[in-house]
């Protein structure tokens, strides 16, 4: 358990990247993980595919409406639509103030220059033109192979390996960089939109009065306190019951029911004590921290 918790925290800490504002405050950006990147990309692919279907329908409607002469206009609409979608969807979206495609917005990501400078057009173009070899080239290669059925096993394997190298590239560096990110000097960070909910985690009703001794409040550290906060905000009865049982067991408190109220009272008391400790320079990271 101890190692697991420590590893989890190291993992989270390992994704922190410093970005110091001119005012001297470190914003501590969190890098997007591979799953978020993949999710955003798949969303974008679906959006592009949907847009392509719309373009195709528009082209067909044009042809149907104008007849033979519409052939040419319809063809141009389709060719240009396909070209613009394929090459400029990512570029235009990432040059907007939010520096993110629809997929990245949905997942809560944005593109940032690694140096902390502002994200300029050249970086956006560089990182997205590399999709040409990362994604489109293997894709068209595989499609060509499948259609012609001439490639044979070896070329298919080579194409597959090529795709795999670029696909897995972000997993083999600690900054989760694509080849495009590497070349553009960018990385993708999390900027989730967070709500600020009501501050006080209120007790539900007039439960028994809870009082804790100092020894009981000193069992846990900040990590456990904030995990408890998560549990209370998620407000899942089963989780609350099991957490309450665990804590009661650990601090030797009697089970008087009112699990949530017990936890809220314990959280409040523990937080008040720890925040007072912070003012005196005492910071206990977790329950294993004996400093």
């Amino acid at each position, binding site marked *: 358990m101890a190692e697991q918790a420590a590893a989890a925290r190291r993992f989270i800490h390992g994704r922190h990247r410093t970005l110091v504002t*001119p005012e001297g405050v470190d914003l501590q950006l969190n890098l997007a993980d591979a799953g978020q990147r993949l999710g955003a990309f798949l969303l974008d692919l679906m959006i592009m595919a949907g847009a392509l279907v719309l373009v195709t329908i528009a082209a067909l409607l044009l042809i149907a409406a104008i007849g033979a002469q519409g052939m040419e206009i319809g063809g141009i609409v389709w060719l240009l639509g396909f070209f613009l979608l394929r090459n400029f969807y990512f570029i235009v979206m990432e040059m907007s103030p939010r520096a993110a495609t629809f997929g990245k917005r949905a997942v809560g990501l944005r593109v940032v220059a690694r140096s902390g400078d*502002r994200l300029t057009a050249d970086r956006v173009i560089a990182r997205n033109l590399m999709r040409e070899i990362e994604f489109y080239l293997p894709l068209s290669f595989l499609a060509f192979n499948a259609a012609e059925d001439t490639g044979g096993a070896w070329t298919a394997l080579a194409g597959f390996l090529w795709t795999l190298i670029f696909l897995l590239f972000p997993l083999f560096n600690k900054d989760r960089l694509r080849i495009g990110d590497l070349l553009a000097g960018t990385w993708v960070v999390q900027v989730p939109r967070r709500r600020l909910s009501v501050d006080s985690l209120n007790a539900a009703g007039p439960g028994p009065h809870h009082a804790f001794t100092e020894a009981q409040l000193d069992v846990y550290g900040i990590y456990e306190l904030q995990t408890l906060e998560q549990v209370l905000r998620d407000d899942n009865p089963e989780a609350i019951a099991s957490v309450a049982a665990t804590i009661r067991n650990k601090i030797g408190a009697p089970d008087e029911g009112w699990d949530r109220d017990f936890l809220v009272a314990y959280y409040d008391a523990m937080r008040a004590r720890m*925040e007072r400790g912070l003012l005196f320079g005492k910071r206990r990271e977790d329950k294993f921290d004996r400093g």
Partner: protein
Amino acid sequence: MNALPSDTRRFRAEREAEWRRLEHIVAVAEKGSVKALSDEDLLALPVLYRGALSSLSVARETSLDLELITYLEGLCTRAYFFVYGVRTTAGRRIRTFLARDWPDAVRGLWRETLAALLLTLTGVLAGYALVTSDPAWYDALMPEGMAQGRDFRASREALLSTLYGGTGQEGLSFFATYLFTHNSQLSMLCFALGFAFGVPTAMLLVYNGTTLGAILALFAARGLGLEMGGWLFIHGTTEFFAIILSGAAGIRIGWSVVFPDDGESRLDSAARAGRSAALVMGGVVAMLLTAGLLEGFGRQLVTSDLARYAIGAAMLALWLTYFYRPRPAR
């Protein structure tokens, strides 16, 4: 011991209204409508932003409310990118790109451009020499789709008609669109493949040259060299210039990965090269659009050899002066 409302709760209650106002301003701005913000909001923005930053610093030191800290981090990050982001209009950005950034980037690539030009010329010479020595090479070098019946089995008259007959009025703009998208895709591939140490880019450039050499050899063999030259020259100066530039961009990337500058990490070197090369590419697409229009419309409408050569030469002179004319230092 009672759980008293701690100081950090008061801290939060006192400032929450300001945070929410900042959140609202940033949300409006992120939708891309800075104009929708009132003057009041715009004036308040820097103050609110600095206030949120100091709240974040205080909260990190004194509060253990995880939700509060992550909220403030998110809010400050979004506000930071807006406050220190670019707020120039698209029009002005395009103007500086055309007036400064693009020609500067192209000039910075002059060595690579020369190398790409030499590679293309090598391809042209090789293609020409091979096909002249043995016409059988032609079919090997020329992809079926590109030849469109222009091969050694065709008569002189048939070849001549491909130079001036065109495809007629109909289908002109479709043809232009097709050429534009096809060439743009090729040039982007040229750029991206540069990452593999520039080798595939060089191969693409040579290959592009060989097809040109092969088709020149075919028409020269039928005594149509001059006419073929005009047919190619009208758009070719722009098109080949653009493809050579994209090849140069690819070579720059490959070179920077293999030979980073002294005291610079491979990663930084690649990132610097990638950015300047990408600037070049932004303009290359515009050049290819011009070339597509010249090829699709200009060539079909202008059938005089002299006029074709004149237009091609004028375009080349235009590009050369635009990129390489001396400019006052910045």
